[in-house]
């Protein structure tokens, strides 16, 4: 166990959406007075870079395994606020089985999914959220299938009291509202998941305004709001 990176600068790429989600989370926890109870489990992928971003307890898990790890942590420590932080691949591909069953069993954990439509850390391969027609390293001719709509899929199996929503990193106000609602849902003993549509200028190969337009375009396929 170490804190060796505590004071080092953020390792996220310039223009990445992750810091926005993490800041929204940190501020909301602070406002709710829950920073001490919060435990942020990190999936592998760009999510792992959040290890020293916030002054709350964090630890790495494995790729796709953050939800079962947080389910176990919550069983051990019911007064904690268990947060699983993951990308779209960790959530909806390699970790989907666990995520679905966590929702199905209504486990009182909160899963924060950062959806940038690609496997970003490994170089921009097709993700379960890649849009139909989107070109990636592994689909150079464009992805042939429609993306998985995570919160909508979870809705099929989740308890009616589970909180499932989608927001975007260019709407901080809504992001913070949803985070608060998700944590309150966990406190009430239910499952919650928020998907954040997020920037990845590195793999989208976009600049400035283009990145924002790309994100806005995603909202046509990924419906914003409570699901």
């Amino acid at each position, binding site marked *: *166990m*170490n*804190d*060796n*990176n*505590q004071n080092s600068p953020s*390792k996220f790429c310039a223009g990445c959406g992750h810091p926005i989600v993490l800041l929204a989370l940190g501020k909301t926890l602070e406002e709710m007075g829950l920073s*001490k109870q919060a*435990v942020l*489990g990190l999936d*592998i992928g760009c999510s*792992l870079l959040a*290890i*020293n971003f916030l*002054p*709350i*307890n*964090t*630890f*790495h*898990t*494995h790729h796709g*395994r953050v939800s*079962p*790890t*947080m*389910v*176990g*942590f*919550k*069983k*051990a*420590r019911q007064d*904690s606020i268990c947060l699983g932080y993951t990308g779209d691949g960790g959530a909806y591909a390699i970790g989907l*089985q*666990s995520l*679905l*069953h966590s929702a199905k069993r209504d486990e009182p954990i909160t899963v924060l999914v950062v959806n940038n439509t690609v496997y970003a850390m490994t170089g921009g391969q097709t993700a379960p959220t890649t849009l139909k027609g989107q070109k990636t390293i592994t689909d150079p001719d464009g992805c042939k299938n429609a993306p998985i709509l995570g919160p909508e899929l979870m809705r099929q199996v989740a308890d009616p009291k589970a909180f499932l929503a989608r927001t975007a990193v260019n709407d901080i106000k809504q992001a913070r509202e949803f985070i608060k609602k998700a944590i309150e849902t966990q406190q009430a003993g239910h499952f919650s998941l928020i998907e954040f549509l997020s920037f990845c200028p590195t793999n989208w190969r976009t600049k400035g305004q283009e990145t924002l337009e790309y994100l806005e375009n995603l909202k046509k396929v990924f419906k914003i709001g409570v699901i």
Partner: protein
Amino acid sequence: MVNSRQFLTGSEVFVRAAIDSGAGFMFGYPITPASEILSGWINSGKKYLQTEDEIAAGFALCGAVLGGEKAFTATSGPGNILMQDGLSMAEGMRLPFVMVAAQRGGPSSGTVIYSQQEVILSCFGGNGEGMRFVYSPSNLSELYKFTRKAFNDAWHYRFPAIILTDGYLLKTKGVIDFAKIGEIKNISPRALVPKDSVVHWPNIYTFEEELYQEIKLAKDDFEKVAEDIADCESYQTDKADILLVAHGIVGAAAKEAVDELRKKGINAGLFRPITLRPLARKKLDKIAGQESVKKIVVVESSLGQLARIIRDQIAPEICAEFAYMQYPGLGIETEAIVDFVAGLRVVSGEI
């Protein structure tokens, strides 16, 4: 007052040991022959979670111990393969991950009762160096004792601990006398992710040197505690000609075979490793290094998984010849071992 002598199956013995160890939670996915541990635990009224697969059971177990809960899982064969994912995290973060591996025949779905084919998987599975304690009990009483020890060692030394058994021992019903085992004190669990301070606890590193330091630290610690943990039974080994090496229930059969062989005038002894990781190598070297020892016969229900560990760990200067009795996934009875050893001596012209 409860009678200290009880008539129990191996699964019941394990559940009792886990309860007596102060375990509070089990994560598990049904798989023969480990399912009776899950149902036995549930019937005892303890807290549990039946997960969607063994991967989830392994990681939920990691999460629970990070939170400070003394918890465990039980699995077998294909489930043991999936469990290596969580075990690898436990090894990387030095988590007290306690697991029963009830071996079944492999590869693939194989059979469900008798096998010693999960030795290498249990000792060295995962993308690491096998920094874990692996206990191989040979009877019900040892199953109880070493389960208690596994929980204590895991929480005391902070390494994963595996009780390696099989369907045969878990389904065996026999008398176990708890009075003879005596009292065992429990090591208390503690919250590994603290409640009153903040930690950022990585298991992935930017630089090779950072990871190397973590591995080196774990290696040094593992070697330091190996002396305390390593355990074996040495039976009739003093000045033995033939040294049998066997573990688990095959070890129990080999012990009887030593008596039978001695009745036939064959001077046999047994080195039975109780811990496969770490191995009681000093004891092994001392026994196998005796001038009297002409042959080391490794007996196992696998194609040489124990033999690989023994050959790797034994001092290189020990020059006794090796012989192998290997029946992968088959039961090995005393008579078969006696015949095999007697046959060896005829073939080699010795008497």
